[in-house]
């Protein structure tokens, strides 16, 4: 089956044959998001639910566009998109608005854009294209690894400089997963883990003061219950007091009475678990597991390396968001400001997540497409 025959399918046919169960899954997750944001606003559509719905609609359109664009086109423009994202990061570095003590936004029209969210996806595309052209044997040639290392290092350093430890971690993690799936030998990982462990004290030294405090608080949360440890303590109280079935919709005292900070963004899962209990929290976790499982399924069923790597990258991105966010609000890791896609309030993260789903749909739609090493 040649590439051109698939692309020439009519638009309606291609739309019909998207993986709609996945889209429904996303709809369910987002729906839960609208619900909990409505509760967070004390039973109001404003200020969060209405805007989140608007962004979902915008994201939905973008998702379909990304899903229906020919995979070859994505491959063709992978490096260009990567370059554009890096450029935006540099713009943010130079002119970005100061938000929450870190340079993360740039105003594009009516949206405050966080380029770092888009950067993750563009990096996945670039790495997928690069490794699409290499065999597993070639992957481990040091000389051929120089380019991907640079592709990874430039955005990670830029995001770290903002500073945004959470997104930088996810970006690096996604890249590591793509390298792993592309065939990088286990030895590199063992060396990496040992080296990383050795570098921890050095890295700790280079952390910002507020980041150091977070690590300290994590290691000893009771040391300062009203200061930096307050958020985590209140979050644990909120989740724990939710019990098996929760306190009920709009009845979460920790969230409704503002004991819980940033309940509409980073601590949205806490609020959900408080109001809907263990049953509700497990629902969210299982929906995420289904989303990640579907991504991996799409990856292993694709006939082209480009699509496979994209799917595994996107799967890892969702996984890392879920893990860092949930582990943080449940007090398993230090406080790292990472949103939970589809549930957390925020424009860029929702749109970026929808685009990521678009990529997954595209990979799935083009799973039978065979592309040469050159790809194009």
């Amino acid at each position: 089956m040649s590439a051109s025959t698939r692309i020439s399918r009519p638009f309606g046919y291609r739309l019909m044959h998207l993986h709609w169960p996945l889209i429904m899954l996303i709809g369910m997750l987002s729906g839960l998001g609208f619900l909990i944001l409505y509760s967070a606003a004390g039973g109001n559509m404003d200020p969060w639910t209405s805007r989140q719905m608007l962004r979902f609609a915008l994201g939905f359109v973008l998702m379909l566009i990304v899903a229906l664009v020919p995979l070859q086109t994505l491959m063709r423009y992978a490096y260009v998109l990567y370059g554009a994202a890096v450029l935006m990061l540099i713009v943010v570095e130079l002119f970005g608005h100061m938000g929450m003590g870190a340079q993360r936004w740039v105003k594009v029209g009516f949206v405050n854009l966080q380029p770092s969210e888009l950067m993750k996806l563009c990096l996945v595309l670039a790495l997928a294209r690069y490794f699409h052209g290499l065999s597993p044997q070639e992957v481990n040639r040091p000389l051929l690894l120089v380019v991907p290392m640079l592709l990874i290092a430039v955005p990670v350093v830029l995001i770290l400089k903002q500073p945004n430890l959470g997104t930088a971690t996810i970006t690096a993690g996604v890249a590591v997963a793509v390298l792993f799936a592309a065939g990088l030998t286990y030895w590199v990982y063992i060396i990496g883990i040992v080296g990383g462990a050795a570098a921890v004290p050095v890295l700790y030294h280079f952390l910002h003061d507020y980041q150091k405090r977070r690590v300290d608080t994590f290691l000893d949360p009771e040391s300062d219950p009203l200061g930096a440890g307050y958020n985590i303590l209140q979050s644990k109280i909120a989740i724990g007091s939710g019990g098996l079935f929760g306190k009920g919709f709009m009845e979460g005292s920790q969230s409704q009475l503002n004991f819980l900070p940033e309940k509409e963004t980073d601590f949205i899962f806490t609020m959900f678990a408080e109001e809907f209990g263990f049953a509700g929290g497990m629902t969210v976790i299982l929906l995420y597991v289904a989303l990640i499982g579907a991504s991996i399924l799409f990856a292993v069923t694709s006939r082209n390396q480009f699509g496979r790597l994209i799917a595994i990258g996107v799967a890892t991105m969702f996984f890392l968001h879920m893990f860092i966010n949930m582990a943080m609000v449940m007090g398993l890791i230090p406080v790292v400001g990472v949103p939970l896609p589809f549930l957390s309030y925020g424009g860029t993260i929702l749109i970026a997540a929808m685009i990521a789903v678009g990529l997954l749909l595209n990979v799935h739609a083009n799973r039978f497409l065979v592309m040469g090493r050159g790809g194009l």
Partner: protein
Amino acid sequence: MSLRAENDRQIFFTRRALVLGAVKLGVAGVLAGRLYYLQVVRSGEFVTLSDSNRIKLQLILPPRGRILDRFGEQMAYNKVNYRCVFNMEQGQEVKAVISHVSKLLEMSPQQEAALLKEAKALRPGNTLLLKEYLSWEELSRIEVNAPDLPSVHIDLGQVRYYPDYEGTAHILGHVGAVSEEESDGSPLHRQPEFRHGKSGVEKHFERELVGKPGVKRVEMDAHGLLVRELAREESVAGEDVTLSIDMRLQNFTVKRIGEESASVVVMDVRSGEVLTLASMPAFDPNRFSQGIKPDYWKSLLNNEKHPLINKALAGQYPPGSIFKMIVALAGLKAGVSEHNTSYCPGYLAFGSHVFRCWKKEGHGTVDMHNALSWSCDVYFYQLAHRLGVDAIAEMARKFGMGELTGIEIPGEKSGIAPTEAWKRKRYNQPWLGGETLNVGIGQGYVLVTPLQMALMAARLANGGYAVKPSILKAGAETPTEWPKLGVPKSHLELVQEGMRGVMAPGGTAHRSQIPDEQFHMAGKTGTAQVVKINHNRPKGAWVPWNERHHAWFVAYAPNTTPHYACAVLVEHGDAGSKAAAPIARDVLWETQKLDPCNRFRKETEE
């Protein structure tokens, strides 16, 4: 790339992807396990923490019991205290609000500066008290401007109020915030708005007046703002305390005293109920409970008439001639006949000293009756010398001197009924014979309070019963029959006769008798020396106020069937007959006119 190679690559990829997927699934399992641990295993613990976050217990202050006079007139009650409170909210401009309110309430720049200083530490959810005890005018000014003052509201508190503060301050005392030393650590004592009795009846009857605090469980948000009330247990108001005071008489007495620095006590000779207890000048306890201003406090401290001292029971003075009844009774007890006479040439030479009589020319030959009526000093110098100080002290103690009367007002002083042993203990010196002579006319070491003198008069008048004074209205516990003093009735009648003589023509206070015959009183003048008598000073010469003698008068009435006893002390009033007796006359007259029995009789006559 060959198809085969491409297939190999896919198999290789699938292996690695499944490894990644397995890791992710494992991690998701860890998250689910953590969620289970928090929400199922440790749920109870977190439910408790969550509730203690949102549910706060708030104390409801109990309304303090009222203090009533014997007829149920309110002497102390609670008024609404309108407080202007600022509630800090997110992004609120404190400075503008404070300057606006301070303009409306006409605050001084210092007050405004103090508020601004306090406002600096203010965080969202905190409240700041801008001003308390708002007048109606200030209240309405705030209400009218309410739309411009979104975070300012009027809070209702309670404030203790004393309507007749001028006359009752020394009886009732005042209330104030609990200081750190006074606190028993109870939640009630830790309430910043709680006030407890600091002095007077307010302090003595604290347990009755305070009541029981209530509790309300309220839900609060993270900023400490009230969300709703969950449960409420009402407070129990304190008991009312009914005093023996008759407010009409108390007010009359206070007005009668006027500008003098004086004390007047009127008590029922049978029940011991104190109908009037005045010590003037006084202070305004209302200003105390509202937080006393420094300049008012300073003016009270610097006043030479000592408005802060309750002269009725904490002012100790030499009794002067009103002590002569005690000396006379001691003489009668020692077997001295009332018909024994002394000759008074106006002085008595004793050792190297000359003891003078107040009457320079002397009284001539006097017996006990005339010695009392004319208040002859020489007679009592000789009598005292014959008796010795210990016999006099023994009699003085019978009539309540030298010890606390036990009235239910804190701060009472016991005075001194000196004995030889007392002086040895106190000064480590032997008693001198001349000192006994001084004691004989109520000078020297003898010190008494006006309350003790009223008690003495009551025990003299009631036929020798050891009545005790009380500020509470007589109830079932009040004994109808007090123990006997052990003084023969005949002795008392002789002294009473002498006191009637004081009011008769020739007596020292005959001009001060009550005109209405059915209300006639018997009494005794006293003039207590502040500085030594100096006959060289020209008569009528100006003497500085604080060097003038204290004027005393004790009396009881009606003189045939005694019902009321009265003691009057006018500090630096110069002479008992001039300064104290007229006050006693007016007060005792009014006392009897107000007596319900008398009023009833009068009404039926008319």
